[in-house]
């Protein structure tokens, strides 16, 4: 199964870093969608089939916390696996992420770390691509 992934971060550079790192995991990837804030991310979730979302915390318009709250409240994708990728250091914020059923990855991160987390929360196997 190839994973369709949504990457939500207000920094285009950071989105590029995440996508580049995703490709280095050698996991089977399908379509990768990008959004610059939570609001646009939610719109993509309604329009596309997405298996996993990687979301930043601090973003304008709608931040990561609010986006995840909307995700969990929506029957259509309440069980969506979510990874929060951030340089956030505030323990209460990180705890909040866990309470929302998301996994936290601290920046910077290695492809191996991302791969382990993705396998753990999506159950995707490291099968040969295509």
């Amino acid at each position, binding site marked *: 199964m190839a994973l369709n992934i949504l990457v939500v971060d207000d920094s285009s550079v950071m989105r590029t870093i995440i996508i580049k790192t995703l490709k280095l995991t050698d996991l089977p990837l399908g379509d990768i969608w990008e959004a610059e804030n939570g609001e646009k991310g939610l719109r993509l979730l309604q329009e596309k089939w997405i298996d996993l979302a990687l979301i930043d915390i601090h973003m304008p318009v709608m931040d990561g916390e609010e986006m995840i709250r909307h995700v969990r409240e929506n029957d259509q994708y309440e069980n969506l696996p979510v990874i929060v990728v951030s*340089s956030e*250091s505030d323990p209460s914020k990180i705890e909040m992420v866990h309470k929302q059923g998301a996994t936290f990855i601290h920046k*910077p991160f290695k492809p191996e770390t991302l791969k382990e987390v993705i396998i753990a929360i999506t159950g995707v196997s490291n099968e040969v691509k295509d």
Partner: protein
Amino acid sequence: MKSKIEKVLEEASVNTFEDTCFMYQVPELNDVQKNLTLEAAAEVKYRGDYTGSLLIETRGGLFSAIAANILSIDSPSCLQKKDALGEVANIICGNVVTSLGRSKQGYKIESPRSLKKDELLKEKRQGKPLAEITMNFNEGRADIKFFVDGGFFAKEKKG
């Protein structure tokens, strides 16, 4: 002997360049690297129990190389270079502030901003950084400085 914060700054900087920029240090400063002129700088401010900033300066082509490596393009635009350097500063700062001790309200890290040369001169008057590191790459050099307003140890003594 290196302080705890210097070690954290070094570890965070090395990891960020390796994992984010896919760039690896070269071991020694040669004469050319020592005399490289400043090309760009970015600053990230933080607020919490302590306030201060992290400053990163690049020399000798590193400014462009960081963006080129991250974005996998040959000629990044000026905006892409600034964004890439700012993101590097943001990640390093996020890792270093935790070593200042647990802040009750956590640390708020502001968006990175590029500094102009006159602002850099002003920065030099701010005093000595709490920790600093120089990193050398084939593409140039980075000087990374971590500041605490009012001094970390002064505030520690006041308690």
